[in-house]
């Protein structure tokens, strides 16, 4: 009996740590979406599809053009950042004063356009980078280097965004514009430019997530469905637009998925996470860290 518990604890610890590693990438995804929502007040329903395009970008640069991974990653981050800025310029900016439902439908339309585009352009085959990173064995626990690397890179990405938002004039303006849109011209700030920069950063974060996820998952036109919905739930649970709430909620979700997967199948981890979300919506409808008004 005692030896059974010992083994069990090892698996539990492994699952907890894997949950934390997963949480890092989910937090990165949530930060991008929260940034867009908090600053521009629109929800990019197609956020995970930007990640999908970025994953294809990695696939083509690494597998077809034979670039090394470290050289392809910055190009993909730049590409998806430009895609984010273009999404704002061509779709969001003309709809800024439109009712939220119209903005939602428009970005929903972009979701289907990107999925269909990927299906036509890249086919429905599952593709991967062909990079298999080794597994780190710590005692009886195994951790994949892909996950460790992703976690570290996601943290670095989030720290960079944090420093940008707190240390620079433009970053301060991004935080300020979310609090009072109308008076920004009095500060000499052109809101259009701030929105464009924010969209590029949101896209860049999706690009970074793409570089990390492509190490662990095969890419196909519908891969966005695997993490799009969960990213939205994380943002809603943390309080839409609340960066810290989203960060915490990402780890809560990741642990539920990881631990739920330990006790039964991985799919049950997702079921538990979604059930937890529904229950939380009854208890705290405005999110974990809702601001008291």
């Amino acid at each position, binding site marked *: 009996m005692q030896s059974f518990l010992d083994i069990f604890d090892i698996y539990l610890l492994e699952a907890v740590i894997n949950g934390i590693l997963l949480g890092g990438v989910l937090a990165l995804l949530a930060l991008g979406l929260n940034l867009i929502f908090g600053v521009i007040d629109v929800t990019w329903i197609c956020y995970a599809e930007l990640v999908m395009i970025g994953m294809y970008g990695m696939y083509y640069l690494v597998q077809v053009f034979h670039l090394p991974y470290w050289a392809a990653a910055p190009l993909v981050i730049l590409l998806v950042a430009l895609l984010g800025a273009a999404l704002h310029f061509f779709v969001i900016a003309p709809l800024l004063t439109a009712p939220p439902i119209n903005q939602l439908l428009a970005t929903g339309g972009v979701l289907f356009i990107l999925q269909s585009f990927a299906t036509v352009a890249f086919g429905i085959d599952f593709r991967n980078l062909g990079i298999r990173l080794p597994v780190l064995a710590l005692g009886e626990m195994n951790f994949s280097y892909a996950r460790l690397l992703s976690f570290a890179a996601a943290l670095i990405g989030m720290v960079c965004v944090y420093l940008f938002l707190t240390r620079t004039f433009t970053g301060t*303006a991004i935080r300020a514009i979310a609090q009072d849109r109308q*008076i920004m011209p*009095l500060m000499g700030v052109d809101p259009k430019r701030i929105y464009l920069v924010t969209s590029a950063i949101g896209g860049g974060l999706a690009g970074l997530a793409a570089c990390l996820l492509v190490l662990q998952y095969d890419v196909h036109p519908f891969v966005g469905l695997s993490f799009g919905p969960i990213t939205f739930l994380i943002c809603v649970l943390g309080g839409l637009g609340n960066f810290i709430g989203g960060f915490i909620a990402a780890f809560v979700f990741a642990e539920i998925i990881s631990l739920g997967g330990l006790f039964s199948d991985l799919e049950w981890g997702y079921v538990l996470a979604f059930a937890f979300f529904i229950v939380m919506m009854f208890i705290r409808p405005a999110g974990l860290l809702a601001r008291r008004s």
Partner: protein
Amino acid sequence: MNGMLELKSIDAGYGSFQALFDVSLDVRAGEAVGVIGPNGAGKTTLMRVISGLIRPIRGSIAMEGTDVVATPPHRIVSLGIAHVPENRRLFPRLTVADNLKMGAFMPGARAHYAERLEFVFELFPRLKERLQQMAGTMSGGEQQMCAIGRALMSNPKLLLLDEPSAGLAPVVVQQVFELVKRIRASGLTVLIVEQNVQQVLRVVDRAYLLEAGSIRAAGSAAELAASDTIKQAYLGV
């Protein structure tokens, strides 16, 4: 003294509602000018039309000869016009330091960020103690200091003050008008809009009376304070 700000025959409003009718006004360099009048007279609209938050329907605005109406709103501050809006409009969940930083956002002001900060701390030593506090958690008087400080960060020539005494305790109102005097003494030109007529006439050189969107009277502070209509309607004597 030469004309700094000149408004000619301004009509302005919101949608189909017109708030200003044929308003002409001028402020000369180094002056402090007041605009007094009752609630809803169009005083705030006047300020917003100068700083570009709303555009006039008709009329012209010139700042040192530059056409303000043709300047994009976010570039008007670089003409030297800083606007302290009604109700202060600080960023409540940013620190005092970040609020002041926003005031120096323009590329021209960023270069002098450190000097401007020193200047603001000289005027408002209290702000230096509160740098890391969230602006929304300070008292009304401190928030007013922060709002004026934020406007001064852009190194303006003309400061627009919209109801700086609104919502403040009487003791604090006194302090705010003392501040206005000190700002004037530092060489700034001030255009101030106030309902607190008695107080404002003590700190300005000249004033305009705005009623129902039109200028009804103009003159030196002493003349207006002595006029019967103003005495009866606003000074309660």
